[in-house]
């Protein structure tokens, strides 16, 4: 054990109220600019109320992160809220555009669906292999919109790596929320070999998407079809697909997260998560452990929602490649031995801010428009009885 471990460790979270306010000021300004899109405040009353709720929520959460020194609990509030709002927003949109949540295979293969980040590995890798771009997403707004999405994703990956899955994914919040409903996990043990499955699914969808020139994951395996859009049950194959979507959703997003307190879809199935894990190798941020401080209590292994910490990685002072930088282990470590670390800087809790600002700003702006629109729809529902706009 190192000399450091024998000393009493005192980490001082930024408790000073004024200091926290000062550190929140840049976020207040940046979110104001980004959430208004530079176009001024919404002019209608409901729009203005939605904006105000979102703006206050986002900045209070950031303030609390700074003030308490805890990351995951406050991140999760926004992340879960984002996922719920996404579903309200998305279903509302579908009802407006198509009149129902139903989606035919024809819609899917014609790309008449909104662009979703899940398809990035299916688009990029087959594009390199076959020089054909498979876009199971709407190009109706022009290639510029898709290109913008890809640039945002690329930029976010350079800074966050797989942090995207805890600070940007609009689905992850669902299971993150459900995994927090129980106080203690059940005794159900999941064999760690299943951590390899997302990489296998990734390999499978890349190869089959290239073979069939169709988005295999969206067509066959996406659990979130259950809460976004699905095929009309007019044939046996459609029934089989629907059973697959709903079983995956129930098993991986509801039942297992509830029982195990883990994000099982993200940790054991999602091919986008696997793809995003690879970007952890090139991004500037990481989560590191100071072996000198660590007392090997195993609390971090217990709480990690994506199975990204094990005895081997702990001994090496690292997480595994799949860490999504949620900060849960950092919050729970009794010795404060885990750090948000920016590569090339010394291990120090102050460098947390170097990760926190871009990560939180990304979550706030990526979720901002969707949260606002969802609140707007709910307000409309309450005041007019319909959540459809126009």
């Amino acid at each position, binding site marked *: 054990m190192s000399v450091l471990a024998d000393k009493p460790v005192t980490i001082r979270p930024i408790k000073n109220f004024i200091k926290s306010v000062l550190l929140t000021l840049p976020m207040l300004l940046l979110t104001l600019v980004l959430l208004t899109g530079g176009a001024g405040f919404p002019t209608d009353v409901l729009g203005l109320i939605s904006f105000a709720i979102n703006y206050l929520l986002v900045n209070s959460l950031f303030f609390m992160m700074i003030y308490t020194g805890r990351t995951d609990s406050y991140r999760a509030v926004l992340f879960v809220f984002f996922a719920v709002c996404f579903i309200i927003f998305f279903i509302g949109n579908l009802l407006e555009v198509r009149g129902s949540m139903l989606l035919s295979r024809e819609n899917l293969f014609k790309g008449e669906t909104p662009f979703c980040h899940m398809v990035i590995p299916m688009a990029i890798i087959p594009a390199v292999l076959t020089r054909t771009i498979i876009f199971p997403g709407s190009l109706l707004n022009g290639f510029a919109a898709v290109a913008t999405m890809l640039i945002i994703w690329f930029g976010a990956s350079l800074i966050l790596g797989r942090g995207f899955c805890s600070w940007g994914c609009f689905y992850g919040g669902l299971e993150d929320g459900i995994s927090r409903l129980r106080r203690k996990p059940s005794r159900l043990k999941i064999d760690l070999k299943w951590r390899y499955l997302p990489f*296998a*699914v990734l*390999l499978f969808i890349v190869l*089959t998407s290239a*073979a069939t020139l169709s988005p295999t994951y969206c067509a*066959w395996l996406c659990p979130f079809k259950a809460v976004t859009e699905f095929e009309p049950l007019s044939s*046996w*194959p459609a029934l*089989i697909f629907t059973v697959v979507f709903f079983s995956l959703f129930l098993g991986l997003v509801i039942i297992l997260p509830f029982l195990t307190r883990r994000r099982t879809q993200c940790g054991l199935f999602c091919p986008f998560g696997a793809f995003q894990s690879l970007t952890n190798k090139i991004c500037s941020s990481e989560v590191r452990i100071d072996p000198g401080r660590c007392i090997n209590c195993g609390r971090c292994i217990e709480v990690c929602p994506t199975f990204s910490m094990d005895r081997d990685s702990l001994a090496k002072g690292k997480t595994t490649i799949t860490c999504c930088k949620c900060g849960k282990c950092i919050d729970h470590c009794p010795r404060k031995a885990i750090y948000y670390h920016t590569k090339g800087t010394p291990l120090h809790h102050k460098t947390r801010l170097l990760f926190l600002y871009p990560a939180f700003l990304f979550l706030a702006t990526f979720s901002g428009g969707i949260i606002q629109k969802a609140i707007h729809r709910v307000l409309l529902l309450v005041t007019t009885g319909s959540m459809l706009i126009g």
Partner: protein
Amino acid sequence: MKGFLLGLSNGVVCLTYCAPVLVPYFLSDGKNAGHNYKELFKFLAGRLSGYLLFGILAWRAGRFLPQNTSGESVFFGVPYLIFAGLLLWYGFRNKETRLCMGKSLWFQKLNQWSPQWIAFFFGLLTGLNLCPPLLLAFTDVTLSGGDLWHSLWFFFSFFAGTAVYLLPLPVLGIFNQGVTLKTIARFAMGVTGLYYGFLGLIYLIRGVQLR
């Protein structure tokens, strides 16, 4: 010559159709490129058998394919299901990926069984896969209305044209380091098995509906 050129011009598509089986297979064994080439030849032998079977069908049944009959759906559905079973077994039989430890002797024996010619069966069953280039070849033969030898020769030369594209794949053996990639590849075989299982089921259901 026409079959060879058709194979050559459509071989990339064949590569992408065989890759979901061959890539995980080569990675899952953890063997070197030399061993993988032996396996590729077994695979190709199986695939050639599948193609020759198609050659016989194309000559015998004439307009068999475009008719979308119940028998035809069953003809393709059953091999898909067998293929699915084989891939699932192969993917999940190793201790790294085994779904349950299975105490019964029968189960353990099945898991230890390592047939030398599994690659042949993978090739045969992939050969019976209705991929677009094969459909093209099939249509060509049925429309030209030649005799059995013409049909077999056409499918043989078509096979030779497409096989060229599979030759680089065994080189994947150079990545065979450590258990991680092997485990991922075995899981991928299992997932591919499930995919073929779905396809088989859909074919069979269609067959029953057509009846």
